[in-house]
């Protein structure tokens, strides 16, 4: 401090003081001055301001940040916006490149190293997941509409709950599965000697070169971008041609799963490890999960609902007598029981489950057609069979869709209750999609109703008993 009051505080020939005021209390420069004891300006002390020439307002902010970085650690708090901005540091061109190359498995290049590793981001995974969930729900609704439209009347069963279901499934897949895979890789690396394993989320590699272990952020990025192919595929799934749907359902997971597995392969099977079989098994598991997601979408959102086109061709009540109809129902129900038994008793594994799904679908649809043709009064049963089938499909997707499973159980309960309620001739307000038409059934005659309900109960009991028994064995 200057000695007397005559001198101004800013003494020009005193460089030290001048420097301090200009620096607003820059401790680093003060330390340097104390060490060196000279009065000259040391321009090398200053941080690299030439990088931030274009932003005059944030100059001070950047200086401080870069000084912190020069000191060796990034001191951004997770409560500040700048921390999360580092995860969104991409340009439009980069995002487009990543999207395109996520579905083209080129043999010479590794998607991860070339496109993602320099700069992993969270913009892609988040917006792709959100887009996909809405696209699936919207095109699922549209597909339903296109398949069930009877002539020009727009009676569209519009289901908003598809959105919530789809978004739960997709976000669980895109964000939880990378977590599991990361934990798996981490535990493998730990268990295998801890040499090559990476447990560092900030991306500091052990060797500093591209072949390092994959980090959690990169896994989330990979999975997010690999879902991007399903957006156009779900639009194409609206076309009601089964062969096209199956083609797409096989092609899409193969392509994007291929890129995914190729990117992760160096981490699954590092060069110093000898367990190639485990690595192959893990790769197959990842591919299977991907395929399950695709098939799950196809079966849940894009299959035609059970009142299929054959109903529309013969809308008038037929002249088949009730007891013949009962026999037909019993026969088909027995067939269903046999088929489901054969398939469900088979070994555990997701491929087997998928076959079971398919069979359940087809037999459910057949029953639907037959009972429709025999006239009114069978609607409760198709409702119940629908629900059994849906139970079958949704049970398989339990790891991904917990909300779907609950809905299936609720609907199944509703299905079991339906026959009991129709005997009373009551029309219940709470109803699943099974269709509950009191007035129509009453016109069939009371005896017919009672007879059919007895059979219904039995067959339904048989079906559900069967499925439940087998579920127990598998559980």
């Amino acid at each position, binding site marked *: 401090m200057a000695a007397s009051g005559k001198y101004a505080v800013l003494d020009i020939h005193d460089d030290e003081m001048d420097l301090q005021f200009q620096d607003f209390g820059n401790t680093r420069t003060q330390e340097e001055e104390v060490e060196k004891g000279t009065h000259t300006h040391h321009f090398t002390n200053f941080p690299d301001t030439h990088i931030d020439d274009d932003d005059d307002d944030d100059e001070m902010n950047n200086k401080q940040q870069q000084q912190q970085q020069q000191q060796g650690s990034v001191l951004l708090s997770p409560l500040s916006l700048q921390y999360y901005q580092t995860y969104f540091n991409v340009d439009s061109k980069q995002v487009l490149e990543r999207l395109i190359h996520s579905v083209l498995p080129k043999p010479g290049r590794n998607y991860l190293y070339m496109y993602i590793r320099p700069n992993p981001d969270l*913009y892609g995974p988040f917006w792709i997941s959100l887009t996909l969930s809405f696209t699936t729900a919207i095109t699922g609704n549209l597909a339903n509409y296109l398949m069930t439209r009877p002539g020009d009347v727009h009676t569209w069963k519009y289901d908003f709950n598809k959105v919530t279901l789809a978004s739960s499934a997709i976000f669980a897949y895109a964000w939880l599965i990378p977590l599991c895979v990361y934990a798996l890789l981490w535990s493998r690396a730990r268990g295998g000697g801890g040499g090559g394993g990476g447990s560092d989320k900030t991306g500091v590699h052990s060797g500093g070169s591209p072949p390092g272990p994959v980090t959690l952020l990169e896994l989330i990025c990979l999975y997010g971008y690999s879902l991007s192919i399903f957006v156009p595929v779900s639009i194409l799934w609206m076309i009601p041609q089964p062969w096209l749907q199956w083609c797409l359902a096989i092609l899409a997971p193969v392509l994007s799963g291929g890129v995914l597995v190729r990117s992760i392969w160096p981490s699954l099977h590092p060069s110093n490890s000898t367990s190639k079989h485990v690595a192959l098994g893990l790769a197959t598991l990842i591919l299977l999960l991907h395929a399950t997601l695709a098939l799950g979408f196809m079966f849940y959102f894009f299959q035609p609902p059970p009142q299929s086109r054959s109903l529309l061709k013969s809308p008038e009540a037929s002249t088949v007598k009730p007891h013949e109809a009962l026999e037909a129902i019993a026969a088909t129900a027995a067939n269903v029981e046999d088929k489901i038994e054969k398939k469900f008793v088979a070994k555990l594994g997701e491929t087997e489950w998928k076959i079971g799904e398919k069979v359940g679908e087809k037999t459910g649809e057949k029953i639907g057609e037959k009972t429709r043709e025999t006239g009114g009064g069978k609607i409760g049963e198709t409702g119940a069979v629908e629900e059994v089938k849906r139970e079958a499909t949704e049970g398989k997707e339990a790891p991904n869709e917990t909300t779907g499973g609950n809905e299936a159980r609720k609907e199944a309960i509703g299905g079991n209750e339906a026959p009991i309620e129709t005997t009373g001739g009551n029309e219940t307000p709470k109803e699943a999609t099974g269709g*509950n038409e009191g007035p129509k059934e009453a016109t069939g005659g009371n005896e017919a109703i009672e007879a059919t309900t007895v059979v219904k109960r039995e067959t339904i009991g048989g079906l559900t008993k069967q499925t439940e028994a087998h579920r127990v064995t598998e559980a």
Partner: protein
Amino acid sequence: MADVDNTNIEIPDFVDPGGYGEVSGQMAVPGTVGKSEAEEYNTLDEPVRKTFMRDLNAVGTKFFHVLYPKEKKTLLKEWDLWGPLILCTFIAMMVQGSQDVPKVIPEDPEILKHDGGPEFAQVFVIVWLGAAVVTLNTKLLGGTISFFQSVCVLGYCLLPPCFSLVFCRLILLAEPNRFLFAIRFIATCIGFVWATFAAMVFLGDSQPSSRKALAVYPIFFFYFVISWLIISHTNV
């Protein structure tokens, strides 16, 4: 030395230093200093009608600027959330699924008791949470706009979809057929494109040009979802 027993001493609680004159006056509202006394009254004192009309004028001016997006300052500098609230409530009330489906179509054996549309709360959450997420995305990508300004713009730009919703509702009064559905579809598309374009005009300059597409896509998606809710609503 103070004498405790002597209570005659007067201790003044304010020592006048002198030389300042009379220090008194009115506590004026900041910004009105300098005006004449007749205008200097608090907004608490004004009639309710005047407050209401002032806010209504502000909202109305902003609606007008959304329909003809030429001038940006009004929406951005003096933002408010009344308009978004009114529009969101209106849309949610119109679009929500109802419990009583009065029409029975003879060919359709499924009589639904609930027509499958979204609940009021779902629409509300979609609008507000959607606007917040889009704003957050803009800020994370490096945008220079503030949070509430962006939410205000996104909310006000819901006005064209609102118009198309009213139009569709009127069309739904007639017997549905394919031609009328095409008209509804076109009206909804116009509303959607108008909303996206208006939001882009207001929010477009806040992003560096290399990331503009990344910032515009969420806005596009937000209005797309709302337009889908509008076109899917077929129950009168």
